[in-house]
């Protein structure tokens, strides 16, 4: 489906004021599909176009803003619960992989449940992944991913998680910390390039764009980002992510970062291939099923993701197992 309206809405929110009802019909569905409806609504409200849109659209956008508020409330509440769960055992919320089992035990004691996994999938998570098997809270209907890194330990790129922890910044003043601004951008880039869900790429790129616009104006942020990408060994994914964001959203990128990541650029042929793949993959999706071109591109990107995620011998084993027909995730 036509993505021009979608991209334009994110790039120039004021353009939403002039959309026809039939265009809204498509835009709202695309926004929902890629998980960007809240962002569209916030942008529309920020650009002051809410009074100008058809009343039925306004109602939907206001409902989306309501959902955003609800998510914020949910996150704050869950963080309180997590701190309570871990504080009893004297654990910090962020801690090295070696002590991951302590977190797991504390969370299970507090009522979180781990989905029953096959022995293979269990091992996949424990040994080859950068997170615990997903936890769910049966009463509160929330999922929790506990990560010890931003990329899997079996991959080609090996960021040192200690660097991430050291650079974490306080967020609430009561000891809670989040990734530093440059690390947030780096994490967003890694997620975009090295996740298996390419039907959500447009949302991830939108997130990256939002982060760059929020942090990018700070003096020296360009240098800082370049330095972090080098230190964490993720210059290549950052190169791609910023390139695609700039192409689609016109994301502003500081000169210092441009110069630094250019050094990590792949050969022209590879670059052109990735450009083509990404361009085809980032369809916003419904109303119709994605075109064959997009599905093919996503399949290739997913194959690439697996290739980068594991050494060839492990990948061969993994694929043999998965193609062998046993049901599971990972």
């Amino acid at each position, binding site marked *: 489906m036509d993505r021009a309206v979608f991209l334009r809405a994110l790039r120039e929110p004021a353009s939403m004021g002039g959309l026809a*009802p039939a265009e809204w019909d498509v835009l709202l569905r695309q926004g*929902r599909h890629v998980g960007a409806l809240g962002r569209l609504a916030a942008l529309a409200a920020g650009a002051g176009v809410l009074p100008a849109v058809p009343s039925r659209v306004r109602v939907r956008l*206001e409902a989306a803003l309501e959902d955003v*508020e609800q998510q914020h409330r*949910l996150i704050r509440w869950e963080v309180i619960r997590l701190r309570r769960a871990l504080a009893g055992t004297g654990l910090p919320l962020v801690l090295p992989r070696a002590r991951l089992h302590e977190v797991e035990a504390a969370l299970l004691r507090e009522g979180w449940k781990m989905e029953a996994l096959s022995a293979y999938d269990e091992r996949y998570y424990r040994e080859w992944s950068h997170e615990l098997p997903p936890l769910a809270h049966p009463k509160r209907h929330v999922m929790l991913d506990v990560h010890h890194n931003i990329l899997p330990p079996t991959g080609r790129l090996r960021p040192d998680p200690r660097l991430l922890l050291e650079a974490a910044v306080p967020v609430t003043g009561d000891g809670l910390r989040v990734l530093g601004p440059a690390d947030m951008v780096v994490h967003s880039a890694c997620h975009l390039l090295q996740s298996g869900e390419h039907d959500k790429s447009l949302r991830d790129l939108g997130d990256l764009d939002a982060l760059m616009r929020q942090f990018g104006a700070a003096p020296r942020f360009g240098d800082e980002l370049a330095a972090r990408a080098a230190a964490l060994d993720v210059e290549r994914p950052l190169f791609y992510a910023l390139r695609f964001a700039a192409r689609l959203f016109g994301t502003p990128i500081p000169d210092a970062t441009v110069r630094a990541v250019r050094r990590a650029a792949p050969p022209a042929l590879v670059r052109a291939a990735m450009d083509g793949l990404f361009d085809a993959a980032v369809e916003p999706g419904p109303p119709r099923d994605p075109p064959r071109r997009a599905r093919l591109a996503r399949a290739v990107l997913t194959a690439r993701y697996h290739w980068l995620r594991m050494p060839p011998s492990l990948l061969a084993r993994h694929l043999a197992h998965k193609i062998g027909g046993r049901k599971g995730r990972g």
Partner: protein
Amino acid sequence: MKLGALSASELTVRLARGGLDVDTGPFVVRVETEIPALAEELRLLYQDFPVDEGDGLADFHVSVRRPAGPLGLRRWWRQQAMAYLDDVRPFEPLPIAMALPMLEWSINWCAATQANHYVMIHAAVLERDGRALVLPGVTGAGKSTLCAGLALRGWRLFSDEFALIRPADGQVDPWPRPISLKNASIELIRRWAPDAGLSTPVPNTNKGTVAHLRPPVGSVARTGEPAMPAWIVFPAFARDAAPRLTRLPRARAFFKLADCSFNYESLGLRGFTTLSRMIDGCDAYEFTYSSLEDALSLLGALPLP
């Protein structure tokens, strides 16, 4: 134009090619299906609803199709129906005979997940003299039967599943879609109103046998007229029981009501404020009943709060 004014063939074609926008009041639903039998049922149940010829903007997009299955075999053998709500498929495919219940459940699913501009309560709602009666209840409490019984005898139908409460002014918006009747209720309502439009009963769904009742034309014509709730009545069907109406203290009614809400918790303060105001302006009751006649006379005599 009303849906019933479309010829059968025109309806089938429009449903199959791009879908038909049905204006159900608070939501325009784009229905798309290639299943001819489903088109016929829709014609029966939705004949009085306006078809939105306008602007191509729908709130919900529901498509019920026949999955082809391996080698396309499902097109011929043991045909199935599958609901697509854009990219979401909330239900497993079902035998094709269940296409209509599946469509109705899909539309409900859309509202329950996407209409957070309302405080939504799982309840039947009817109106008399400008005030709304809200009948919250879990499946099996008999609220749909009660709802159908009242709607066929003078009460205006708002909904048999959703109380859509507007946080801004506390009024309930009508959404008079077909009423879903289960098992013994189907025969009961047929006897209660022999002329009522009923869809073909579908056996063996996960709710037993299901049939849908066409909403009264007078209710469909007045989707634009909300009402202030006056009575909150928690029904409980009990075979052979004498009818009994008991006042419920407000605090208890509040929690029972919140418990029946789809989105009370997620709306936070807004949900709390809306429901508290609603409770303050209403009388709440528990109601045990075994016959529609009793229900009609007792509920019809409820004093204004």
